[in-house]
């Protein structure tokens, strides 16, 4: 009984840690930049597959890949925002029109990135075997790679939270999330901050990718599922609330773990039920403002 309990809790924390990371990324892109980036999952997939290639071809450890994939994807995200999304922002009549057109543009990105990945890595299911040695915690057995992934997910989330609350750039980002126009008046270079936010979202995907590749199977088409989970978590935490996304990720992970313990086929169904009930009862999420 106790072991099952521990199994479910730690399993939930592992999933939750990764959900929190990917949701924070999406939250930065949507909450601040108004881009509902449906290609977010494709960035995660890119991170995971880059890690796989680096590991199988060059023998580079997934943990080292973290510092290669993260900044690499940050750069890609930054450039995409500077070119594509900033162009759309400039030509859109209103913020609502921009939200619509950027949503469609990110569908375009989804198709392009997924197709490129299919060309490079083929459609096979891949997996890494990295540090899959069993570790016992109070009688429950876990693989070491899962615990390491949990540790890194929590560590990155915390580091990011500190960055957001303690640094100048972090404050500028939060100001831009509150009210872009006023932030600009206060001297925030809004174009740069928005591009950095989008880049940081991609950075989170670049961190999540290697962690996911360590513990789950992967496929070039896996992206959309992670995007959907990220959207659910962001709504759960409250659109635009980055702290809410962090907490929401862990809550959803724990729920998923409990449901999986009963019937693995129902976990996605459970996510959608929670999601829909939440939208009906409290659409602003846990920490969102009404």
């Amino acid at each position: 009984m106790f072991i099952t309990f521990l199994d479910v809790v730690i399993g939930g924390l592992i999933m939750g840690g990764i959900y929190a990371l990917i949701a924070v990324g999406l939250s930065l892109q949507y909450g601040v930049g108004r881009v509902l980036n449906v290609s977010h999952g494709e960035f995660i997939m890119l991170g995971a597959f880059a890690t796989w290639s680096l590991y199988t071809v060059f023998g580079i450890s997934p943990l080292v890949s973290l510092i290669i994939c993260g900044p690499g994807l940050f750069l890609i995200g930054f450039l995409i925002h500077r070119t594509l999304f900033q162009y759309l922002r400039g030509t859109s009549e209103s913020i609502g029109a921009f939200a619509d057109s950027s949503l469609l543009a990110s569908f375009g990105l989804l198709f392009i990135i997924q197709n490129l990945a299919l060309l490079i890595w083929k459609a096979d299911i891949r997996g890494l075997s990295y540090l899959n040695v069993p570790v016992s915690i109070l009688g429950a057995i876990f693989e070491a790679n899962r615990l390491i992934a949990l540790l890194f997910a929590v560590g990155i989330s915390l580091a990011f939270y500190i960055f957001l609350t303690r640094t100048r750039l972090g404050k500028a980002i939060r100001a831009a999330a509150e009210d872009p126009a006023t932030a600009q008046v206060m001297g925030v270079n809004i174009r740069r901050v928005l591009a950095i936010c989008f880049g940081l979202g991609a950075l989170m995907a670049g961190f999540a990718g290697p962690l996911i590749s360590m513990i789950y199977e992967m496929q070039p088409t896996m992206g959309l599922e992670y995007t959907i989970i990220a959207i659910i978590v962001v709504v759960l935490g409250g659109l635009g609330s980055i702290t809410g996304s962090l907490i929401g990720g862990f809550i959803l992970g724990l729920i998923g773990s409990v449901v999986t313990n009963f019937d693995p086929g129902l976990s996605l169904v459970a996510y959608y039920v929670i999601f829909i009930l939440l939208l009906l009862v409290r659409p602003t999420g846990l920490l969102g403002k009404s």
Partner: protein
Amino acid sequence: MDSTRVIYKRPFSLGILFLILILLATMPFYVQPYLVILLSSIFMYVIITLSWTIFSGPTRYISLASAAFFGVGVYTSAILGQALPLPVVIVIGGLVSFILALFIGLLTLRLRGMYFIIFTFGISELIRHFLLWWEANFTGTVGRWVVIVDNTTVYYVMLVIFIMALLTAYLIRRSRFGLALRSIGEYEEAATHIGINATVVKTTAFAISAFFMGLAGAIMATRWTYIDPRIAFDPLFSFMPVLMAIFGGTGQLYGPIFGAAIFAYLEEILITKFPYYYMLLFGTILIIVIMFLPHGLVGLVQKWRKGGSRR
């Protein structure tokens, strides 16, 4: 000045429309069978996109639940196909979608903007995953066989549904109901203040649009012969109509029709000619369209017309 020109032109464009319809109706007699099949798929997309525009065009509520309504039609066809004659099955498929849309419409009254988009997407994914789980655990088999109907019949049924959808969309646009929908899209609070029952209007339009999607799904299932929840409720059926309608432009009725027809044809060509680069090309075209044609083909045509009249 402008309105007189439109009135003057109407008999002329009606004649062209009639001619096109005759051409489409006689098509199976003189073209290759392949073309009939291709045209049926194009019609499928045109119907879904046109009916999506009935609700989402004027109200500007972007619905991503098309896959749910289409899939419900597909599943009705798979479950009832053997027991009942084809026309009955198709109508039931439409009605079940209609009822589902009424239900979803009543649930989502309070949601707007991004929340509405996400909710509609969530509900269609929920149905898909629930069915997958249900079929795996209770019926034992994931997937069903559907009674086959010959290609010409499929084509004619699609044509009839298309004409019905077009007529409905046209009548709605010209009615008080259509005006109410448009005023909700412009400014919902103001619309309720001048006495429009936004709830009833929105839900009705949503259900009407779902009805045609259900019809299209029910007939399309017979061409696939085998279906499962992943095929029937493929999220692409939710995304495609949005893309096609925006590509065509939602300002005029012909926008979504031509948008869907061109897009569907393009998809078919790209898939057969460049199977490995199809999505890459598709995504690139999509981004180019959004960047340079924000009002779709309709916008382009209007721009061109304005330029022409000025000269």
